[in-house]
């Protein structure tokens, strides 16, 4: 059934932008500022360029495998064993991030609007959305994303531009912030902010051609970089460095500043819509891919029976960290530093092996023909 689903470049791009950029409304601008100071925006440009180069390499390596996903490619590269390894690695990676993000969203929501509700109750709303998304399938998720994400982006721009009276260019100085070593040395590991782009490997069969693969890849990386850049730039311009590393919900703090006349003074509650919609789309999208990858790895026939067990699993894992600070630490300290190895380096290795084995097979065939 899944092979029948086909969607366009626009839907594919929007899905990836959603998966990549969701971190903006979590702690992303603060984390970047903590690392590189006032030069966080330079890090983003630097990392984006590296990511574009990496994607160029990936698309070159991928060109032989039009319409295949990374599971199929690993099957070609190393047979069933590599397929299972790739599938499990990818499943584990998405499960780790989805559990943490679920916890973060729920905790943040609790802080903003539901301070008296237990965390499990708040989490349940997101889990419900996740289950419905996975149940109705990828087609529904991408289509709804295509409608919601542009609206969410407009909302995000409204917030960041709405605080323009607070912009202070002086906050951008010193230009090199925490120093070149931090920006370019430690900053390199921040390529992980694009880790969700690895989902492109799984939507390749749905967008069919290599050309679409490249367009979706480049477009989503470029648009995401712009959004990253703008979020960090506007954040730094609004809050001085010392304040900016304190806000645990940067974009929410920005929304709280919006003040138009006597009537529109506290519009940050509208931000909850943007927040929850982004979270639900992200979680349902990522959750769908967990199930999809797991099914494909073990060549199962149906996806729907997997939804309930995985939802319960993720719900429970998300409640494991004792508090929000631990969850953020688990994301920033471990995930964002090293996950690029799984999402960028690992696929490159798999693709290279698959390329070599393809070439060898061709060579063998040619040799056989020559012998004949």
């Amino acid at each position, binding site marked *: 059934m899944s092979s029948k689903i086909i969607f366009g470049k*626009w839907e594919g791009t929007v899905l990836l932008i959603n998966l990549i950029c969701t971190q903006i409304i979590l702690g992303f601008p603060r984390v970047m500022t903590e690392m590189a100071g006032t030069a966080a925006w330079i890090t983003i440009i630097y990392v984006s360029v590296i990511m574009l180069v990496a994607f160029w390499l990936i698309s070159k390596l991928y060109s032989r495998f039009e319409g295949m996903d990374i599971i199929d490619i690993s099957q070609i590269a190393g047979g069933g064993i590599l397929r299972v390894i790739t599938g499990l690695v990818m499943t584990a990676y998405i499960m780790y991030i989805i559990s943490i993000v679920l916890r973060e969203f729920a905790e943040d929501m609790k802080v903003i609007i*539901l301070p008296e509700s237990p965390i499990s109750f708040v989490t349940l*709303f997101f889990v419900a959305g996740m289950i419905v998304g996975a149940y109705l399938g990828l087609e529904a*998720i991408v*289509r709804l994303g295509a*409608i*919601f994400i542009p609206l969410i982006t407009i909302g995000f721009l409204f917030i960041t531009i709405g605080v323009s009276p607070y912009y202070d260019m002086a906050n951008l100085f010193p230009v090199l912030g925490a120093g070149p070593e931090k920006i370019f040395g430690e900053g390199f590991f921040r390529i992980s902010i694009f880790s969700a782009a690895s989902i492109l490997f799984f939507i390749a069969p749905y967008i069919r051609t290599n050309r679409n693969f490249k367009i979706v890849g480049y477009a989503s990386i470029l648009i995401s970089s712009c959004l990253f850049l703008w979020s960090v730039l506007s954040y730094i311009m609004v809050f001085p460095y010392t304040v900016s590393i304190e806000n645990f919900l940067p974009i929410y703090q920005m929304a709280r500043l919006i003040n138009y006349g006597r009537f529109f003074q*506290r519009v940050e*509650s509208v931000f909850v819509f943007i927040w929850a919609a982004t979270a639900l789309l992200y979680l349902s999208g990522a959750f769908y891919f967990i199930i999809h990858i797991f099914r494909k790895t073990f060549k199962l026939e149906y996806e729907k029976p997997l939804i309930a067990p995985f939802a319960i699993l993720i719900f429970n894992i998300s409640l494991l960290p004792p508090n929000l600070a631990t969850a953020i630490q688990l994301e920033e300290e471990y995930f964002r530093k090293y996950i690029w190895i799984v999402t960028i380096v690992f696929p490159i290795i798999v693709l290279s092996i698959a390329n070599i084995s393809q070439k060898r097979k061709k060579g063998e065939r040619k040799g056989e023909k020559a012998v004949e």
Partner: protein
Amino acid sequence: MEGYKKIIKKLLFFNEPKKMERFVLKETSSKENRTEDSAENNAEKDKQYRARRRKEPGGIRKIDRGTDESSKKEKEIQKEDENKRKDSEVSVYLSHNLTSMKRLYNIPMNGDVVIREFDIILKDRAVGAFIIFFDGMTDRKVINNNILQPLMMLSSLEIKKAEEDIAEYIKKQILPHNQMKEFTSYRKIMDEVNFGGCAIFVDGIAKAFTGDVKGWEHRGVERPNTELVIRGPQEGFTETIRTNTALIRKRLKDEDLICQNFEIGERSNTPCSMMYIKDIANESLVEEVAKRLKSLKVDYLSDSGELEQFIEDSSFLPAPQIIATERPDRVATALTEGRVAVIMHGSPFVLIMPITAEDMVKSPEDNYVRFPYGNLFRLIRYFGIALSLLLPGLYIAITNYHQEMIPTDLLFSIEAAREMVPFPSVIEILIMEIAFELIREAGIRIPGPIGPTLGIIGALILGQAAVAANIVSPVLIIIVAVTGIGSFAAPNFSLAFSFRILRFAFIIIGAMAGFLGITTGLFIYGMWLVSAKSFGVPFLVPFGPKTANAFTDSILRAPIWKQERRPDYLNPKDDRRQAPISRGWMDNGSKGEDEDEQ
């Protein structure tokens, strides 16, 4: 005096009730429906079964099953017999035909079937004949003047052609009625008679003539009741299928406008017509609609509302997937876009399919008024619909979780109004919403003259007494009233209902988790809609998925001359509906699609 005594006696003493046999609706037993022979057979069978029951433990069930099965078989045999009779051919003998028709129409049990026997005089001999029709469904004058009179009186004229072929002679020379058909099968003849025709059987001819003499009482073409417009045509469909098809055809004078006929309902044999424009509508769409219509196995359909439920894609989706309209102009527009319409006899609502979510928010008037006004209508309507769906939920969410959103002065006034109210706001709003729905429902069911009284009572109790008694706050009355008005702004009756149901869900979910709950609700609702389809067309097209050429008439509409192409999602055979420069007088030799503007 005697009378009084009787009354006192009756009141003081016990009166034995009169023995009356009360009617009980018994289950149809196989015995009663059978002929005497079969009853005897059955008695024998029962004896055999009883004998077997004594031998076998648990035999009762077996006996029951046995009689049930045998009764089923009997019924099947009876039905088969009847079908055979219906399928049989018309006989040459008039008496045989007469008996068959009487038996098929259960005459004399059936009171409104008229059989009139008469003679046709052919030169020197009289040929027996009879005519059969339903009284009340046919036009007496037409039968008298155009059928009976010529047959009985003109037939004595000189025969100008070969004398042998009486059938040919009767049809061509002495039946001046304009719609005469010949049939040899009883079934087809009965179909004609059942739908207001008459059938003429003549001795010696192994076929019957049927004439279209429909003449039942019906409502004339009036203003539509549900989709009123200020600017635009004011006529609506009626309950008569041919009037309705004619109303469409008189707007679309196109020979490619096809009207394919179906009969639905084994008992009602309700005539239905599927209309589409052959060189515009997608063939697979037409085939799909025809397939769904043909596949229906029901005994009776009374309205297109039932038909809609039989052919729609999903019964549980909280939105209609077929538009039911009373307006011929709307159907004509839909047909020119490449859609398919289904008209059912007996219903003034014609079904249009496939549709998308935005089609339900459109009113035909949007295109009849000038471009800026049409867009204003639409924006107001969208606003009204959003209010009807979300306003109570948002009110609950804001007052319970997001008080900071309310400007301080407004917050004070809301609080002051709520101070004396003993209920939490969610209970308060549920009470009012239910009361509002109650008034609405009662307002529809109530007999006409009492209607205004109900309105006054409703307004008084809800508006004033409830506030005065501190049961609800005045702010809430405003919220409920605005919501109610918003729900009446939805141009589609069915859509307004779905929003009414969902509104309660949003109130509950808003009370549970504020904006988070409402966003989750919207997300799930959106997911549901986006995965739905109406006859293969995604429900939220052209937004999800995005399609080309659809934005000229979407949430807003472009000027009429800019709506050059038909919606892409309908995959029409010809996607252009206007020339690149539709306003020929603007053409000053420039080329290109967008040159209209210049």
